[in-house]
């Protein structure tokens, strides 16, 4: 089995909950599609983790100038301005890339105006 981070990119104006929004009890998903996806992927044991993110205006970007121990430079906003922004992620466990692609294609961000990027997770000390 292999681990993939599914990065959910979606249009800036879509789905994001605002800091003051209170989700309904037992319902954290921001689109009915996510509830449906979790209902299928959850019991299949595919999802090893995941969170929805607040909108990119809430982001803070940090870099340390001049290497370790240098000045911490803090800027408001996301790393890169884009029409589609990171809205959440799932950690997916799948047999191989084809299997992971099959699940990624079911995530609403992939079919509802956004994109899903699959990034293989570096597995340290992996025993085959």
């Amino acid at each position, binding site marked *: 089995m*292999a681990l993939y981070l599914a990065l959910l990119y979606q249009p800036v104006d879509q789905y994001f909950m605002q800091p003051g929004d209170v989700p309904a009890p037992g319902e954290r998903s921001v689109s009915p599609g996510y509830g449906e996806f979790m209902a299928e992927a959850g019991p299949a044991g595919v999802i090893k983790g995941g969170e929805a993110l607040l909108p990119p205006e809430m982001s803070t970007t940090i870099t340390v100038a001049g290497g370790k121990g240098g000045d911490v430079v803090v800027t408001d906003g996301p790393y890169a301005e884009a029409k589609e922004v990171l809205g959440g992620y799932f950690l997916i466990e799948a*047999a*191989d*890339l*084809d*299997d*992971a*692609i099959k699940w990624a294609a079911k995530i609403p961000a992939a079919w509802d105006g956004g994109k899903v990027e*699959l990034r*293989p997770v570096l597995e340290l000390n992996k025993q*085959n």
Partner: protein
Amino acid sequence: MSDPADELALTIRVAGASVLATLTRTFGSLQLAEDAVQEAALAALRAWPQSGVPRDPRAWLLVTARNKALDIVRREAARPAKEIAASYSAPERAPDIAEAVIEMTQEAGSVRDDILRLIFTCCHPALSPEARVALSLRTLAGLDVAAIARAFGVPEQTMAKRLVRARQKIAAARIPYKVPADSELPERLPAVLAVVHLIATEAHSPSSGDAVTRIDYELEAIRLARLLSDLMPGEPEIISLLALLLLTAARRPARTRPAGAGQNGAGQDGHEPVLLRDQDRSLWDHAMIAEGTGLLAEAVRHSGGAAGPYQLQAHLSACHSTAASWEDTDWERIVSLYDLMAALGANPAVLLNRAVAVGERDGAAAMLAALDAIDGLERSYLWHAARADALARLGRAAEAGAALEAAIGLAPTGPERRLLVRRRQGLA
């Protein structure tokens, strides 16, 4: 391929690809299998000219490459684990001797599956088209990095990096080494066919060169298309692609000619391109055309009336290849084929060719109108050249000259550009 050295090299390349496919499965690492097959191929190149080609070259190469692979695994085992991970993605499982014996006696069916696995892995849509082409030429065609780099006009180091990156991605992202299920084929086959088509159209085949490096990419693509059609019989788009490649290659003897006396259109190799309308059709390979049209008819039977993009292109090519002359070409049919292609996905190049066909059917005024209706080709020298042609036929010489100037300014250097310069001289 009359040269015995060429023939030997081809035998090794063909058998080597299927050995590579099998070893990749048993050892679980494409890089390891490639290195082992490379060593075995070198051993064959040394041994066979003396001993003669063995009765079963594949078995010889398989045994030799397997031993080389086991040597490499043993060698690697002595190195720190971190270094091994950097060069070979760790084999999923160690090969054993029992497996080796089974391999030696395996049936043809499992070789077939191994080659299909290799094809679908190298042509996985998660790899970039450039990487797919490079990897396929390396693994399926068994070409060396230097030859592939030359064919695509990039430095050898760039091509080597591209290949390393592709293999790393296959290992790291776990691109599976398997044949897609029938239900996945409609999604996966186009990426494979695109690779074969790109090899035929994009790879530069030198018309001269020394025997060691002389690779004919158009024939290489035909060989791969034949392999696919043997492995997956009855797939209409595979048969159509093979037909298209044959119908196109059949015109090759007339596609260029030695530069004429006093002409300045010659390329570096002393040949200049000849436009389809000016080609001497008696030079075409009519046996190849017959095979192409026969295959196309077979593809039509298998496709049940739903023509895919390669079938449409093969029909177009057949229209040209079976016409007695440019004037006798069935332009009505060609225009409607372009309409069908545009319906599958409008692409400016298709619309440009359609406009030329409209011109032959309805005259220069209709051609000019069709050309001016296309958006997004202002930077294409072919578009400007076609406009110049239409304007000249309408007697608007000044505008035609201006269009030719624009075409010359945008044309790549080389024979295409010199051809345009000659046309401008003809206008004056």
